[in-house]
C-alpha cells in the first residue's frame, strides 16, 4: 500500500479561478453570491447564487473545443488542465503512466436536459436539438478531462453521488493509487448552475433569501453555486523522486449510507462515517485540527452535522468551518473544492472562515471561525461530504512532513 499525496490543484469557482485566486479568496473570506443570471429567475421570490463569472474556456483549455461540451464538462476539463500545470506534469508524462480520472457530479448534463425541455415547451418537440441531447450523459465529464489531456490509456469514471460526489471521486482515486490500480489519479468534482436543482431546493424551502449562513441562528438555507475542483493524486515516492511540491497527504476516507430518508440526514450515521474515516486514516479524534463541514446552511444539515461531530469529538470539537458560506453549494464540486481548501489551509497555515456569520446557533455548538480567516498550524483536517440519499463520505487530509 502506497502513501498518496496531492501535488496539484485546479479550481473553477465563484471566488476565483486557479489556485492563487482561490487561495486569496479563501483567505479574504470572499463572498461569491450575486443575483443569478445564467437562467430565467422570473417568478421566484429570491434568486441569488454563486455563479462563476469570467470563465473563459478557450483561454483555459489547450486541446478541447469547448463548444462541443456542456458547461460542467468544460469546468472539469479546465480544472484538470490547471491541476496538471500546477503539479508540474506534462501530457507526455501522463501518457506514459496508467492514469485514473474520477469526477463527481450531481447534475452532470442536466443543464442540457433543461435546454431540451425548454425548446419543446416553447417551440414543440421538433425543436429539440440532437447536438444538445448528445451532451446529456454524465460520462462526458471525465471524458472531457481525458480529451483535454489527450489520454487514452486511462480509466474514466463519473461518480454521481449527488452533493458528496467530490469526496467519493477523491476517495476512489486514493484507493486506486494506494493499491496500484493507477499511477496517477486526476480526481474531483464539477457541476454547472442548473435551474432544475435550484427549483428543487427552492420548493423544499432550502434556498436562502440573501446569503448562506452556516451554523448561524438565523440561517435559512443554501445558495446554489457551480464550479470544479480537481486534484492530482500521486504516490508519495514518485512525487518526491520528481521534486514535486506536496500540498497534503491523503490519509484515508470513510463512506456509508444513512439508509433512512431521501433528503434528511441521520446523525448517528454521519457520526459513524466520521469514525470510519478516522479509522481508515489511522488518526485519533484528538489528532484532528480542523473540520471542513458539509455545512450547507440549512436548518437540518447544520444541527445534524454538528451533533454528529460532537458525538465523535465530545464537548470540545475542533474548529469547524463551512466553505459553502463563500462558494455556495456547488453540488458535485462542493467537497472537492473544500478538499482543495483543506489542502491549501494545511500548506499555507490558515483556516478559511465561515462568513456571513452573526450569531452562532446554540444548537450548533462549535467554533466556526466566523467571518475572518485566522493563521493556524494544521496537521490533520477532516472534510465532510453528506449527500441527499444518505450518501456520506468523509476524507482525512494531513500535512506531509519529510
Amino acid at each position, binding site marked *: 500500500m502506497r502513501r498518496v499525496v496531492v501535488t496539484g490543484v485546479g479550481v473553477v469557482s465563484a471566488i476565483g479561478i486557479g489556485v492563487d485566486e482561490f487561495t486569496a479568496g479563501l483567505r479574504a473570506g470572499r463572498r461569491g453570491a450575486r443575483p443569478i443570471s445564467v437562467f430565467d429567475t422570473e417568478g421566484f421570490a429570491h434568486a441569488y447564487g454563486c455563479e462563476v463569472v469570467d470563465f473563459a474556456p478557450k483561454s483555459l483549455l489547450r486541446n478541447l473545443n469547448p463548444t462541443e461540451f456542456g458547461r460542467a464538462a468544460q469546468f472539469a476539463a479546465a480544472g484538470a488542465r490547471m491541476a496538471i500545470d500546477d503539479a508540474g506534469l506534462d501530457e507526455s508524462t501522463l501518457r506514459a503512466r496508467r492514469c485514473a480520472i474520477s469526477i463527481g457530479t450531481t447534475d452532470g448534463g442536466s443543464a442540457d436536459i433543461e435546454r431540451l425541455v425548454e425548446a419543446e415547451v416553447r417551440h414543440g418537440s421538433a425543436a*429539440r436539438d440532437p447536438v444538445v*441531447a448528445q451532451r*446529456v450523459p454524465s460520462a462526458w465529464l471525465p471524458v472531457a478531462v481525458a480529451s483535454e489531456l489527450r489520454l487514452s490509456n486511462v480509466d474514466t469514471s463519473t461518480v*454521481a453521488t449527488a452533493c458528496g460526489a467530490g469526496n467519493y471521486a477523491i476517495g476512489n482515486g486514493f484507493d486506486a493509487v494506494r493499491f496500484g490500480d493507477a499511477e496517477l489519479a486526476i480526481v474531483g468534482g464539477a457541476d454547472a448552475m442548473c435551474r432544475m436543482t435550484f*427549483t428543487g431546493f427552492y420548493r423544499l424551502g432550502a434556498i436562502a433569501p440573501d446569503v448562506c449562513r452556516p451554523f448561524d441562528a438565523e440561517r435559512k438555507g443554501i445558495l446554489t453555486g457551480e464550479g470544479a475542483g480537481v486534484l492530482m493524486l500521486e504516490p508519495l515516492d514518485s512525487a518526491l523522486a520528481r521534486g514535486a511540491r506536496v500540498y497534503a497527504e491523503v490519509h484515508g476516507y470513510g463512506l456509508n449510507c*444513512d439508509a433512512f430518508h431521501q433528503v434528511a440526514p441521520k446523525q448517528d450515521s454521519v457520526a459513524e462515517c466520521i469514525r470510519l474515516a478516522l479509522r481508515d486514516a489511522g488518526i485519533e479524534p484528538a489528532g484532528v485540527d480542523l473540520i471542513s463541514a458539509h455545512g450547507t446552511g440549512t436548518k437540518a444539515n447544520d444541527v445534524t452535522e454538528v451533533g454528529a461531530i460532537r458525538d465523535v469529538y465530545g464537548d470540545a470539537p475542533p474548529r469547524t468551518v463551512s466553505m459553502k458560506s463563500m462558494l455556495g453549494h456547488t453540488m458535485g464540486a462542493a467537497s472537492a473544492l473544500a478538499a482543495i481548501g483543506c489542502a491549501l489551509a494545511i500548506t499555507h497555515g490558515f483556516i478559511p472562515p465561515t462568513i456571513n456569520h452573526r450569531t452562532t446557533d446554540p444548537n450548533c455548538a462549535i467554533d466556526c471561525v466566523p467571518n475572518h480567516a485566522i493563521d493556524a498550524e494544521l496537521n490533520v483536517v477532516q472534510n465532510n461530504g453528506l449527500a441527499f440519499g444518505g450518501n456520506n463520505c468523509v476524507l482525512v487530509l494531513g500535512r506531509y512532513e519529510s
Partner: protein
Amino acid sequence: MIAPVKITSWAVCSPFGLGRDAFAAGLRAGTPKAGQVDEFVISEALGKKGTSSMDRASALAVHTVGELLSGVGQRVPLARTGVVIGTTSGSARTQMEFTKASLTRRKPYFVEPAMMPFGLMNSAAAQCAIRHGLTGPNSTIATGRVAGLSTVDYAARWLAAGRADAVACGAVEEYSAERAWLAANDGGDETAPIGEGCAVVLLEPADSAAPALADVLAVRSRLALGDDHPQALSACLREAFTDVGGVDGVGVNDVGAVATVGAGERAVVEDFLGTAGKSVRWLRPTEYVGDTGAASASFAIAALLASARRDHEQHGEQHDERAGRLALVTATDVTGIIGCALLRLR
C-alpha cells in the same frame, strides 16, 4: 483491478420478465422482446408507500437488489454490504417532467417536491439502501453502456480496501418516451430499440466462504479518442489478458464464451482471439432485450451466468466442458469509454 473477486449470486429483471429463469428462457428461445418489463408494476412490487413519485429505474433496482440479497443478511452484516449502481444520466423522464412543470405552471416552483430526489442520479442506489436497510458503502457510477463493468471494477476496489464484505453491483435503466428520444439522438450507432431492466451480481473477496459462480479476473477500460475504437478495445483486451498472466495466445485458448454490448465489438474480439475464437459461444443480449443503456454490460454478465447455469443443468459437473473456462465481456459507450472484463465461469 487490484485483486480477483468472485461473483456469488446474481439477479435480473428484464423485458423477458421478472427473474433469472425468465431471462434465461428468453435468451434460449431467441425471440427478441425489447421495451418494458411488462410484469413490473411499481406499486405491486414495492407497495404504495412512498412510491407514487418513484422513477422506474429506482424501483427496478430496489426489486432486483432485494432478490439478490435474499438470505445474504444472515451471513453479511448490513453495514458491511455495499451497493454500486450504474447509470447514464438517471431518470430522464423524472428530470424532464419536473423541468416541464417548472416551465409551464403559473409559478416556476409549482413542482412536486416528492419528485426531486428521484431525479437525482443516486436515487436508485439510495432507494436500495433505504428499502433494504443497507448502511454500508453506497455509490453510483455514470459511465453509460460501460457502467456494468465500471461498477464491478469500483466495487472490487472497495473489497480490496476492506470497506465492505460483499457488494451488490450492477446497473439499471428504465423505459420511457424521454429516454427513447435521447437514445435515438445520442450520436451513437446503436440501432436496437430501447429496453429496460436491472442486472446485478453479488461480489465478494476471493477468500470469502460463499461458493463462487464465477471469478472476476480482470477489468480494464480505456478511452477511444477519435475513431480508434477497434484499437482501444484491442488494447483493453491485451491488457486484461496480461493482467491474468496470459501472453502470446496462452490465455485466449481458454476462452469459451464472449458477451458483447456494441455491434462492432465482435469483429475486434474475433480478430484478437484468432483461431481460438472459432469454438467460442457468442452472446449479445442487446439483440434480444434491446438497448438497455447503462444496464447493457450488466446484462452481458448475466447472460454469461445464465448460459453457465444451463451448461451445469445439461451436462452436470463432470462433463461440463465449459466449466473453468474463461468468459469475456466487452462494452462501448457513446462517449468513447471502452471496457472489457475476464471472468472464469465455475
